[in-house]
């Protein structure tokens, strides 16, 4: 029982981070119908930016993450701006473009930060909370709280603001959105910036839980992408549910199958997606592919 609950907490913590990554994938897909294959590498850049600012520039952890979000949002804007001429014209080239950007980011990180990477000390030094014999790391609580807050803020933005409504409108019908006066390119740029910001938040938060290195983007990107598909690609609720499901799956698989855990995780994922290709909230997603 104790092991089970302990694993559960670990799973939810990673799940919260995967959910952030998945939301970043989904918000870009929703608005543009594009899978941003550079997303995982943007997470990695976010992790590097946050950890470097925290460890070497000695910024407080929240400030370091905030700066990292700003930096990666800028990268998101650059990617969108470069790909904009292809928007709604050549999709395959756009996809390849995002893969290219991902490779560039990874190679750039190796060049600037070296190939080895570094461990990040936990920013909350306090001992784990002890609840009825189960140890809850305080950092886990922080990660879950921040991810939840980011999710709520994003939801409020999409539901309550004019820009949020406009972004959803572009996702549903970009021509009609243009006709009512929405600048589709600008809306897409914002989606990219928000997606990249979420990536940096995820990267910044996962830094102290993993080893920050130039290739971490690959596995995090795949997991976040899988989580988004799991939940129903393009759906925000789906991204959260999928992220959580993937985190839990990952964590229980790690407990039971050790070195085969990734294999088991993705096998289960593949089986579920075969049964339910649209994911958990699949029916309500926008389909632009």
């Amino acid at each position, binding site marked *: 029982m104790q092991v089970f609950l302990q694993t559960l907490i670990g799973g939810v913590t990673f799940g919260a981070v995967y959910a952030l990554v998945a939301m970043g994938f989904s918000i870009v897909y929703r608005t543009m119908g594009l899978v941003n294959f550079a997303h995982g590498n943007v997470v990695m850049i976010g992790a590097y930016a946050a950890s470097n600012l925290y460890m070497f520039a000695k910024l407080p952890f929240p400030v370091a993450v905030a700066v990292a979000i700003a930096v990666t949002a800028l990268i998101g804007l650059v990617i969108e701006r470069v790909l904009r001429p292809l928007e709604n014209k050549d999709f395959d080239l756009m996809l390849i473009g995002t893969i290219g950007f991902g490779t560039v980011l990874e190679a750039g990180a190796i060049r600037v930060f070296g190939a080895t990477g570094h461990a990040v000390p936990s920013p909350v030094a306090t001992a784990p909370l002890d609840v009825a014999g189960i140890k809850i790391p305080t950092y886990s609580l922080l990660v879950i709280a921040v991810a939840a807050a980011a999710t709520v803020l994003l939801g409020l933005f999409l539901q309550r603001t*004019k820009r949020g409504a406009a972004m*959803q*409108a572009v996702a549903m019908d970009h*021509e009609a959105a243009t*006709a*009512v*006066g929405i600048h589709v390119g600008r809306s897409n740029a914002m989606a990219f910036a928000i997606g990249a910001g979420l990536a940096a938040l995820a990267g910044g938060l996962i830094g102290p839980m993993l080893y920050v290195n130039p290739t971490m983007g690959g596995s995090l990107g795949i997991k976040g992408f899988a989580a988004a598909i799991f939940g129903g690609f393009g759906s925000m609720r789906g991204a959260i549910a999928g992220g959580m499901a993937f985190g839990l799956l990952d964590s229980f698989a790690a407990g039971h199958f050790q070195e085969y855990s990734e294999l088991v995780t993705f096998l289960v994922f593949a089986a579920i997606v075969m049964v339910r290709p649209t994911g958990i909230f699949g029916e309500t997603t*926008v389909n632009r592919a």
Partner: protein
Amino acid sequence: MSTLIVEGLSVHYGGVRAARDVSFTVEPGQSLGIIGANGAGKTSTLKAVMGLAPRQARRIAFGEHDLLRAPAHTLVRHGIGYVPEGRHVFPGLSVEKNLLLGAYTGDWKRTPIGEVYDLFPVLGEMRHRLAGALSGGQQQMLAIGRALMCRPRVMLLDEPSMGLSPILVEEIVTGLKRLNADGLSILLVEQNAKLTFDVTSACLVMENGEIAATGTSAALRVDPQVRRIYLGL
């Protein structure tokens, strides 16, 4: 008041020519119809005016605004409302959100949403419903209502009768006539010639991407040539 002027408009999709050398004007308060069979180039013409299709033209202007140089998303600011073919409402958003997005460029605290609900009361009753859950006729009203939210001076409508029952078509016709009587200029593209003659004062008949005939709606209604163009005889 502003006149919509289109001169020498051509539309090409790759090597396919959809419209060639189309010219017309819509005077303030006028209602002009463009009729023709399927594939005659009506929709392409309208989309090209909106900047949503690849176009060449000597001139497209609305009042003093040169629309050839205006990006598509700025047209609404000049007072041009557009009701696309197939309605194209935002299906996952509520009726109210759809309408508010029609006033995207304006202040959401001062929109004519009351007037839209007044024109189409059913939209008011369903304002919290998702637009995708509405019937075809209700979606058409929503699309028209959305275009009205920017307080347009001219409204471009593309096949508003498509897929609607005769009763609903009648309701749309009544709505359009009322808007026109209130001073809104209308450019109506339709396959349904009878509806178009009811709503408009003058019409163009398009065939194979070109204007085949023009005249007052009253005269075209009895013109045997129109019948020929339609039936391809």
